[in-house]
């Protein structure tokens, strides 16, 4: 078993004809992901890599019964693309796009919270992969190996770094999810942890956090109370980040003294979660 996606997931790519959208559609197809449709307004009726293109999500879902969508549209249009996906009946929306204004996301996340059974992953995320089954996102597939470690992260390439170390050590991954580096994301650490908790394939969990916000602290509380049956290891990026400076991700910023790496590390350690000093230490702590 994996979480959220699997062999049977039927995926639509929103923005399939764009530079990133088309490149990653090819990558996902070669991984074996069932991409059943693409959506680009005004390009309906044509196809790309054998995938039919529709003008709207409503039409694409009606024709294909897809349940997952992945969004590659530019930031100005991405919030609307999320809403369109939610209205079309898609259950899992993965938004790769970086740069959506935060007050748009305030409204989008409120709107989604009023809908039942819709989950947004991202925005500003690398997507998710269940090795050997399905990839919905942009991560390099060759570093993954099927296994029992669940990974959840606010980052992209740092996640690859951790996965690379885990796979090299002979451990593999059950599902790896990048939840995104923005201030407001659809799926939070705790949401993923609770899915991993009930996933029989996931025996161990790695949580990759960074400065900004207090999701790591909340996760530590959750782990202490609910996740005693699985081994959890954490890594926090940004121990040396200066305050008030945005470190690349919109959400990676220490504001008014809040969101430092120290408080996050302390919270995890107090919850009995081992915190790795560097990515290469993670496999050792999992064993």
């Amino acid at each position: 078993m994996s979480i959220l996606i699997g062999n049977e997931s039927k995926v639509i790519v929103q923005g399939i004809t764009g530079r990133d959208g088309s490149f990653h559609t090819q990558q996902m197809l070669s991984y074996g992901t069932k991409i059943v449709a693409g959506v680009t307004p005004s390009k309906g009726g044509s196809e790309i890599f054998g995938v039919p293109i529709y003008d709207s999500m409503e039409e694409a879902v009606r024709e294909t019964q897809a349940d997952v969508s992945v969004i590659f549209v530019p930031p100005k249009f991405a919030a609307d693309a999320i809403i369109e996906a939610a209205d079309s009946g898609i259950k899992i929306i993965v938004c790769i796009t970086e740069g959506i204004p935060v007050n748009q996301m305030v409204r989008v996340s409120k709107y989604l919270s009023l809908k039942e059974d819709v989950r947004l992953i991202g925005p500003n995320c690398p997507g998710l992969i269940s090795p050997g089954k399905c990839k919905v996102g942009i991560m390099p597939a060759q570093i993954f190996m099927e296994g029992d470690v669940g990974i959840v992260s606010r980052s992209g390439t740092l996640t690859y770094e951790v996965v690379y170390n885990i796979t090299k050590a002979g451990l593999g991954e059950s599902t790896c999810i990048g939840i995104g580096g923005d201030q407001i994301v659809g799926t939070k650490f705790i949401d993923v942890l609770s899915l991993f908790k009930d996933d029989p394939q996931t025996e161990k969990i790695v949580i990759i956090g960074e400065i900004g916000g207090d999701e790591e602290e909340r996760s530590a509380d959750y782990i202490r109370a609910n996740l005693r049956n699985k081994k959890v290891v954490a890594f926090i990026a940004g121990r040396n980040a200066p305050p008030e400076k945005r470190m690349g991700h919109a959400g990676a910023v220490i504001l008014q003294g809040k969101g430092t790496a120290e408080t996050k590390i302390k919270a995890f350690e107090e919850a009995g979660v081992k915190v790795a000093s560097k990515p290469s230490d993670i496999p050792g702590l999992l064993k």
Partner: protein
Amino acid sequence: MKLIEYQAKEIFRNYGILTPKEYLATNPIEIVNLGKVMGFPLVLKAQVPVGGRGKAGGVKLVRDEVELEKGANQICGMNIKGCIVNKVLVSEVVSHENEYYISITLDRATGLPLLICSSSGGIDIEEISRKEPEKIEKIDYDLILGLKEYKLREVFNRLFSNVSNKSSFYIDFSGLLEKLVDIYFKEDATLVEINPLIISNGKFYALDAKILVDDNALFKHPYFEKFREEANDETLQEKMAREAGLTYVSLDGNIACIVNGAGLAMATMDLVKYWGGEPANFLDIGGSSNPEKMLNALRIILTNEKVKAILINIFGGITRCDDIAKGLLEAMQNLNINLPISVRLIGTNDESAKKMLFSANISVFSQMDEAIKDVVEKAKKEGI
């Protein structure tokens, strides 16, 4: 993007929030001339984009011309946490008794704006929440209802239990909060703060102002570009990086870091420190695979004279390692780089990248730790 006090106050006044009568000066002569027109007492406030200016001596009360001239000369050119003061707000003194705090900010936990008020204004909100957490009032903003009336009334009654003429005050107070909400949404802010907020002659005044604007929404507000130019708070490298579409944050060390991805870039600077070195910067060249980016990144870090060694850490995914190698070799030819370089490349097309770099005598590592240990060693040798 953080607006400086005088910029934030310009926005406040546009929305009808009162501020003291004040003017911006750029040198001591202007300050002295303003003082003669405005009369005394006056407050001189350094306009810098960093906190803690009061403690650093960047705010001065002057009562006559002698003090004015002395204060003007002290404050202009003053270095506050690395920022040189070249703008000063010359402000009238507004008499008041109590100082309050109010702000609206994004609450990441709920995903909604949150209003925070306190009767203990004038000090940092962190300090208030540490010392007197019971004096912090919070009002959730509802996307359908806005500010709930009954909540507003409760908070008002606790904050202003001793003012006379309550009903007209209440109208002013709720109007003020509405204005903050307006600024928050219309200007795409993530924080709008008045601290201290005071009452003088029965009216609310913002004595200080802070606004953080969402960088992702700057495209909607072209006039903020003028503010950024005036603020001039970026280092040369930060400015060059922004113009090249890269993310750069200046740090104090001597090891320049070029990394793809924000999380990996943060982890890289943490590991430089872990292995005994000091990072000179955070630099994320992003995900795409354009050799030009490497050239730009090197151009930027070479302008920093403190740099003794260069670390390149790339985890190839969308970014192809051979493109990185190509960009690096081009840069080596064009930019005359005399500093030692340690390169870590792994992922997409790393084998051909390694071959290209080996033939140019550049050491390439597969492991992040090894590359970082190597660059720390090299920086130490260069530093002697």
